[in-house]
């Protein structure tokens, strides 16, 4: 039972930049909304925007963004009927999604259904699903291995495979299947040392995670990280894609810093492989898999492409992503001045039909998204915390900036949350122009501030500028 769009009230269960954009999208759709904020976030842009646009009653004070109980009690109190998790926090929490839709006062969860989130949230499960559909995944095991001999056979085959592919220094990764965040991973260069590494990881996993399952995979060097943006109606009908993105510029901790759409630019750069074909194959595979799992709402299929053009499915992100804007900026829909994927997501999440099909979606030009962050790229991307005094840039019609940092007064970066300050998206007709405009934009950017010790603000602008030069090149 879905109510008509205007009767819904949306609870925005997030903060910062994404909350700001969801508020804007709600305004565009004419939807009521409720925001939540913690004490530390009182000065954040999303609070101010909510207060300015919807008044006192649209903002609820909570003590933690992580506590589902608090979020649901805000929903009940405010009479919200739908909930948008943004990205991070509850976005990929299938339990939260299930609770939202199955509680005695159900809420529409703006995102995929909870069973889809659960099935695709598990990387091993995703890999098995993909292999069943003949979608290439990273060579290696697709289930936790408990047997040493079985693991060794796979490792030997991986070494042989890499040798055949012409990899000079074949490497096999041994991971604890229950691990995460880089714990319990080791590289093996020498087939003779595999067994001892396997045992070490197995024992480590048994001690740390109480599950001795081990995964064995090929280690891939110098790959490009591509994504396919998938959009689908409720109940998995009408699945379309909004092109690809290249997110290969990443910090040491595998945090993305620059995203480019489309994923490759075969028109501007010569690749060692047929880039257009790779893009087509990954979009087709992604659509295939989305259809198979009856994917609904918005999601991203993440791929890695090896230097000789082999794509492998990495994982599926069952949420809207930070870099959704860069796909939107190059997408064109008939009868729409500009595409906004967040309002599309809300619209579809509330049960509206898609209203167009793949043939209606066209792509134009190249978009580059910069994540402007207060951090020190020379010192392992260590975050910088302090007060921002000035933040400005030259407005251009080809550049868009999304930020929750207030521009008219100083802003104290809260230490509790990540130091992401702004997202800037520039557009150009081709890659060369986009890169030039990107450089121009970064040059015009003024970001000043001081911390308690009086040291000046550190940001990653210089790093972004340096990386702009060879974007999309392998």
């Amino acid at each position, binding site marked *: 039972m879905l109510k008509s769009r205007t009767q819904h009230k949306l609870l925005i269960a997030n903060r910062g930049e994404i909350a700001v954009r969801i508020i804007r999208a709600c305004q565009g759709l004419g939807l009521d909304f409720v925001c939540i904020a913690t004490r530390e976030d009182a000065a954040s842009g999303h609070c101010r925007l909510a207060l300015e646009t919807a008044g006192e009653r649209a903002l609820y004070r909570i003590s933690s963004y*992580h*506590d*589902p*109980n608090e979020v649901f009690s805000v929903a009940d109190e405010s009479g919200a009927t739908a909930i948008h998790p943004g990205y991070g926090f509850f976005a990929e929490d299938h*339990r939260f999604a*299930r*609770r939202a839709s*199955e*509680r*005695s006062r159900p809420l529409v969860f703006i995102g995929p259904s909870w069973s889809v989130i659960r099935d695709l949230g598990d990387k091993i*499960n995703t890999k*098995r699903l993909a*292999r*069943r559909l*003949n979608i*290439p*995944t990273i*060579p*290696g*095991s*697709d*289930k936790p291995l408990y047997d040493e001999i079985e693991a060794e056979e*796979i490792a030997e*085959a*991986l070494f*042989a*495979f890499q040798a*055949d*592919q012409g990899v000079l220094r074949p490497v096999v990764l041994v991971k604890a299947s229950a691990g995460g965040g880089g714990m319990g991973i080791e590289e093996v260069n020498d087939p003779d040392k595999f067994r001892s590494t396997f045992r070490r990881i197995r024992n480590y996993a048994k001690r740390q995670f*109480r599950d001795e399952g081990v995964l064995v995979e*090929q280690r891939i060097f110098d790959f490009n990280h591509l994504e396919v943006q998938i959009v689908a109606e409720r109940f998995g009908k009408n699945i379309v894609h909004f092109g690809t993105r290249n997110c290969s510029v990443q910090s040491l901790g595998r945090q993305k810093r620059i995203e480019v759409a489309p994923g490759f630019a075969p028109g501007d750069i010569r690749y060692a492989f047929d880039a257009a074909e790779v893009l087509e194959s990954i979009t087709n595979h992604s659509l295939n898999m989305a259809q198979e799992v009856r994917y609904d709402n918005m999601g991203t299929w993440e791929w890695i492409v090896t230097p000789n053009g082999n794509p*492998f499915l990495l994982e599926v992100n069952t949420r809207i992503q930070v870099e959704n804007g860069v796909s939107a900026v190059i997408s064109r829909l008939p009868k729409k001045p500009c595409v906004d994927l967040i309002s599309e997501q809300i619209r579809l999440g509330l049960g509206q039909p898609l209203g167009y099909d793949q043939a209606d979606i066209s792509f134009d030009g190249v978009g580059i998204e910069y994540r402007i962050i207060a951090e020190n790229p020379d010192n392992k991307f260590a975050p910088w915390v302090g007060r921002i005094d000035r933040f400005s840039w030259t407005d251009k019609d080809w550049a868009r900036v999304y930020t929750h940092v207030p521009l008219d007064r100083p802003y104290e970066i809260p230490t509790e949350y990540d130091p992401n300050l702004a997202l800037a998206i520039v557009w150009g007709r081709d890659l060369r122009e986009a890169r030039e405009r990107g450089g121009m934009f970064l040059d015009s950017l003024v970001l000043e501030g001081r911390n308690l010790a009086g040291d000046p603000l550190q940001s990653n602008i210089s790093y972004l500028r340096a990386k702009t030069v060879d974007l999309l090149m392998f």
Partner: protein
Amino acid sequence: MDIEKNIFELRERLKYIQDIFGFKENDNVVLLGAKLQELTDALPGLDAAEQVRQLTSLEDLFAFLEKKLERQLSPMDRVRIVRHPQRISLKDILEHVYDNFTEIGGQDEYSVDPSMLIARAYITRKVGNKVHNQSVMVIGQEKGHGQEFRNGGSVKPWGNAKALHYMKVAEMENIPIHAYVNTPGAFPVEDYPGAAQQIARNIYEMAGLRVPVIAIFSEGGSGGAEAIGLADVRLMLSHGYYSVISPEGAAAIEGRIKPGQKAPTELMENCAKRLKITAKDNLSLGFIDRIIQEPVLGARTEHFDFFRSLRQEVINATDEIILNVRGMNYFRAKAIMRQKKSPRVNAENIFVRWKLGGPARERLLWKRYQRFMAMSRHAFLDRRPVGRKCMEFGLDLGWSVYSFFKYDFWRKHQKKVSNLAEDVGAEFQVVFDKCLAPARRLKAVFSRTNDEPNGNNQCQLTQLSPWEKRESDQQQGYISPQARKDRAVSCPNALVHGCMDMWAPDLFGEWAGVCIHCGHHFPMEYDWYVHNVFDPQSVREFNAQMEAINPLGYDGFDLKLEEAKRKNGLKSACRTFEARINGLKVVIAMLIAGFRGGTVGAAEGEKFIRAVERARKKRFPLLAYTHGTAGIRIQEGTCGVIQMPRCTMAVRRYLEDGGLYLVVYDTNSYAGPVASFLGCSPYQFAIRSSRIGFAGPGVIQETTGMPMPPHYHSAYQALARGHIQGVWDRREMRKNVYQALLTVGGRNLYYR
């Protein structure tokens, strides 16, 4: 005649009578008091002859009324008799019944536990011209006429450990054991070892003691009594009691008395009556063999005749056991039978050597096992039709024969053959490898030129390994009713660990009732285990028709039992079934907390024993899963408490046959079962938030006088004490049980 002395004695007798009848108004007691007062008042004015005359008549009156009062004794009066400081104690018995003794295991307060007294003693028999000194080990609780350090005969765990040690000594020296049970109950401390842990050990070891044991019950209070009371012949003093729980304890439970309050006296009297604790009751129920008649109003130190008859009885009983299991015995057995009928005959004239040879020891154990298995058969209902009973009996027999041929006979030889075949095969392999090496090298050279390794390898590495359904894909067969409610559940540790509230469907569904933050385990229904630990559709229940009843006719219990049966849809608190875990067949006995607190009575005990027997015959591993137990069902009285030794004996037999007995505790497990057939397992595991112990917090405070320390019964404490072997997470129960089935246990399992 020393008048003063006689008056003093009468006064003592009156005081004793008043003590026994306690606060109750009794005309006879009042009369005696008045008469005695009258005499003492009148005495100075009388001449000597008159004094003697009046005194004699008063003594006659005392004797007459004492006999009359004896007939009026209520069960609670008997309790007061056995607890009276003037009651004979074990030291008196040692002095008067045995001819010589040496106290071992401590002297007075210089002892590990002064309430457990141990002595080597001998009884001298003169047969013809020959003198025989026959040694025995005397073990028993000592109350010491009210000596404070004796703790009222309430034995601490280490006292029981001491008793066990000397039982072992007796077994080594091949001498009989005489156990005198005189305890209101075990002292409920959880130290190293815990009370329950040690009693379980005692019962387990006594089930296999290869020497004759006779037990003489004076005061037999539940666990404390069982710790030394498992015997081939059980005698009972006529004024003693033997019960599942002290009447005070029963009254506290019945009246729902809070710690610190006292149960009303009438309720206590009532409970004592309903529990059927007297010697006569126990004899008629078949839990003891004979009653030793005491003088009126109970034996006291001055009753020398009584000691003589006690001596006759213990000699008789010991002779009887020995002759029962030894070869040449015909005439002597006859003679002893005669003596049992007329106790006036002197038992010492017939000589029986009190040492047993090898085969006789085995027979002794078998007889003991059979004796206990035959007990409490009347105390439950078996509703199977006759045809079914016959069929199941036949099946049982079939299984025994089949197992014998398959495992004992066939497998032994088969293993030899297969071992040989393996060796021969390995030898040939070496030779073949050597011969075929050149050919293989040649083949490798060819295949390198011909093959397309690239495509082949890629295919192998990126294609699916054989698709099998994963466990998480399986539909959850069981959804807890708690998981159907839309509510947030707070963890009890939230203040300490800062746990977030959890949504009930998550908590009781996916997380199996475990707080994901701190690991606290919320109680789950037993169905969860049935559906989530074992392979789906593999559960086959047996003996479901056996029904718990009210064997003692305990007032008001019928209704409560009906209520429990209706509410749970079960006939007893124990469910027994066969199931599979990853294909391994297991026999499971489950104690279910919802049914009268998971208490164990005759039906539960019998079901458990039959499950053990089934596992033994089929060579299956046995899993005792304790969803929760509050102990022995007190309303069944001794029928309940006798399940402690019964089940333990069955378990011991199974373990000695090379079985695997695994115990898993969930929620709260206390008292009897933990102190016997559950606690004796070498492999016991508990989930994190379970509590394992002997007595509840109220009883501990009441008996020890100290408040219970925090986490006294927690699983980790039990682990530290060495009671359990590990703490498991409920979410990993299936994996852990399977792992345990593969790794632990005896040699005689069908899959080994």
